[in-house]
């Protein structure tokens, strides 16, 4: 099928094309407590095609993309490509060049066996340190073995295979007739048994505290400590501000060589794009446009060094060798996690959905479980919300020298923001 599509593209009259052929086998298990709700298997092939057409004067380059179903016969495939070509001819974007073949550093990941990995996830759930009052409510396991091939009209032809997994786990804790739940979603390459067991055991323990949590008091402005995956959202703001599309479209005013905040009293942030992180579900040697992913510092000590992103927008910014990053590391700070956890502060362990608006920098999230450190007292609290803006927090942000990895990002294990508005639940 792929060969047929490639032949059709070569003779279609397109000025350029890209094809991504993704074949995946996925095993899924759904559990209610430890009983099997449902088992599922998926075997799919997705062929995504993008065609490019230049305007007659050569000033514009239009593109249009879409899937060609693997069940399409030649007539249907030809019709779909013609539709794309027509659509591309109607799109007027300033002309840019497609990625060309380059040496791809690193070695490809090995083929994964979904049966083996899914079995490991099931064993983790069976080995949870459950008690009479803290246990597993339900879980969903997804394990994929993916083979991805990317080709374009410039001669790029790359293939790699990789595993991709996720585990959704819901934990219950109960006391005196009251029951609460905690939700966890883990994305990874394969199953990291030790890490999962450690984190889920912590979750079981945290559940006990949520049962006795008091309503969050109205704190006005307070220092807030982030020590979970929610902290990744804070650093995502820095990453998006350096996205070439955001820059080109005017959504970001950050400039190379100019500090991102003028009065930085806190720690200065350094962000690096990397092709691989241990067990990341986003590990890849090349991006979705066939460009090699290289280790690149994009922000050093609060000063932008490089934009990143899609070839179209990078070319518009004058970047020839660019890529769409997948994994990131944020360097640790000067203080230990312990030093950051001093004085009065609120440490939030559970949000309903913590968000950072990448354009405005607004942060927001409802508190489902926090620990209020007030002098010598530590009070579990629940309810209320956080708000504020990263434009302000970037001036005083502090983070630990210890780091922790959440799937595609290695970030400081503890981050402390100052002057966060805390709405109480009382």
């Amino acid at each position, binding site marked *: 099928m792929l060969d047929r599509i490639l032949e059709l593209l070569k003779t279609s009259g397109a000025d350029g094309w890209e094809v991504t052929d993704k074949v995946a086998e996925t095993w899924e298990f759904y559990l209610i407590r430890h009983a099997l709700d449902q088992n599922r*298997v998926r075997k799919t092939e997705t062929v995504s095609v993008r065609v490019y057409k230049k305007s007659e004067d050569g000033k514009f380059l239009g593109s249009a993309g879409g899937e060609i179903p693997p069940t399409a016969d030649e007539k249907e495939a030809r019709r779909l490509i013609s539709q794309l070509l027509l659509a591309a001819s109607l*799109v007027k974007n300033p002309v840019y060049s497609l990625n060309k073949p380059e040496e791809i550093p690193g070695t490809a990941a090995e083929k994964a066996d979904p049966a083996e990995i899914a079995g490991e996830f099931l064993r983790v759930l069976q080995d949870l340190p459950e008690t009479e009052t803290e246990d597993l409510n339900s879980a969903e396991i997804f394990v994929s073995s993916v083979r991805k091939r990317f080709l374009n009209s410039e001669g790029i032809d790359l293939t790699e295979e990789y595993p991709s997994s996720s585990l959704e786990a819901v934990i219950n804790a109960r006391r005196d007739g009251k029951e609460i739940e905690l939700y966890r979603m883990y994305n990874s390459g394969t199953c990291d048994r030790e890490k999962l067991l450690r984190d889920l055991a912590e979750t079981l323990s945290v559940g006990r505290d949520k049962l006795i949590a008091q309503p969050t008091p109205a704190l006005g402005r307070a220092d807030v400590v982030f020590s979970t995956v929610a902290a990744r959202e804070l650093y995502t703001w820095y990453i998006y501000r350096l996205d070439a599309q955001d820059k080109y479209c005017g959504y970001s005013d950050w400039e190379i060589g100019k500090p991102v905040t003028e009065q930085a009293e806190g720690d200065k942030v350094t962000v690096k794009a990397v092709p691989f992180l241990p067990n990341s579900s986003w590990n890849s040697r090349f991006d979705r446009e066939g460009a090699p992913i290289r280790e690149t510092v994009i922000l050093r000590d609060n000063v932008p060094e490089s934009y990143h992103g899609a070839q179209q927008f990078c070319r518009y910014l004058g970047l020839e060798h660019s890529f769409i990053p997948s994994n990131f590391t944020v360097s640790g700070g000067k203080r230990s996690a312990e030093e950051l956890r001093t004085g009065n502060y609120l440490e939030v362990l559970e949000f309903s959905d913590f968000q950072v608006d990448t354009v405005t920098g607004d942060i927001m999230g409802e508190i489902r479980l926090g620990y209020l450190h007030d002098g010598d007292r530590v009070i579990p609290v629940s309810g209320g*919300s956080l708000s504020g803006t990263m434009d302000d927090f970037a001036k005083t942000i502090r983070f630990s020298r210890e780091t922790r990895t959440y799937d595609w990002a290695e970030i400081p294990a503890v981050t402390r923001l100052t002057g966060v508005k805390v*709405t109480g*639940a009382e």
Partner: protein
Amino acid sequence: MKATFSPYLNGIAPGIKKLIAMLRKHYDYVSVLSTDSRGFGISISQKSKNVSTETLTTERGNVVRVYRNGQYSEAAFNRFDPERPEDTCREILESLEKQRKLLENLQVRPYETGLLADEPETLLAEMETERLPEEEDMAGLIGKLTALSDLGMEKGKDLIDCSVRADSTHVSKMFLTEHRDLRQSYVYSDGSITVTGDNGERTEMAYDGISGRVGPELFDGFAPVLDRALEALKDLLRSERMEPGEYEIIASPGISGLIAHEAFGHGVEMDMFVKDRALGAEYIGKRVGSDLVTMHEGAKCGTTVASYAFDDEGTPAGDVTEIENGILKTGICDALSALRLGTEPTGNGKRENYAHKVYTRMTNTLFSAGQNTLEEMIASVSRGFLLRGVRSGMEDPKHWGIQCIVDRGYEIVDGKLTGRVVSPVVMTGYVPDLLGSVSMLGQETELDGSGFCGKGYKEWVKVAEGGPWIRAKARLG
């Protein structure tokens, strides 16, 4: 005109029926959902233009559901040769047998479930549309959207960009079992305008949308959407920060819908009852809101992007009264959860696409209207905010917590809008407290279907939600 049913699906139907017959020799129940949904997605901004033949719901593939020994299993695939169903049958049997062996080795027992009924039924529902996405004049539409983006830049102040998105999907779904043959096709479209502005002090982004179970003719009505988005941006650029506290609120129909959907709708999805993950299960027959609160849910509750003839398990569309005069009556249910709970399915079994599992999902979720005018509501507020613009929400069925992120709050003092705007507004609280505080309702219900809904952080499906203007009390931050 009719949204014609997919010729591709008609072509593979005999092969799928043979596959079902082959699998029935091994299983007590076999169903297949086959899909073939085509469409387009266009986004036009000042700096970039993109066209795709995909939307979030275009797809082509099949999913088989089988039952044996109290256990349901599924196999999804998108390669199928109708002339050789035996190949697919063999592959499914082998894959599911491998999984069975792994589960047996690990001593994972099934959550025992009864057998789904398979009463004879035939249906072909081809719904009305004015135009089809596959026949749309793309040059004309792209020109129109480009002109709209240009007009936005002309009309707006401090604008960086005006981005216009238009998606249209022609859905075809076929549900087959040994005795059932259901086929439906319809077109839905949705679009949005996002304007981004910078006044030298800050950058803000405002959004407004349009949707309907109609064809690309929907985009002829884009002009008022642009005006609303520009007005919202103007307000955002002069907005102040919210002072946290409990306030009287007047929720716009969009925010009412967000409350209906996030605060309550997810809490009565009955697959969560099966797992003991919803507090709602304990409140059936009990008060959860003021006398004024009546809430409906179902694909038959309106003609929107979320309205269909049957769900992804072949259950006909429903209209469920979830809350009547403040009393929780019932929830919504997919077919397997209904078997487990000993109740009837309500037509709410939905998949993200053919490759995904069925969950109980919302369709159209809405509060019923009341008797009050907006003017009466504003006049009744001593200190509070009129809330407009949906950003996002997150469910919490187990504890009935609320997280709704609202774009803008317009201050009301002593019954009058002061002109002061705050943004963003995080609305939190406890669902029965919020619904219990509903004290006035507007006279008309409006439904909006421009967004998608996830279950947790995944499984995105099209939904619509709405209500009238509502006066209540809420904690805002």
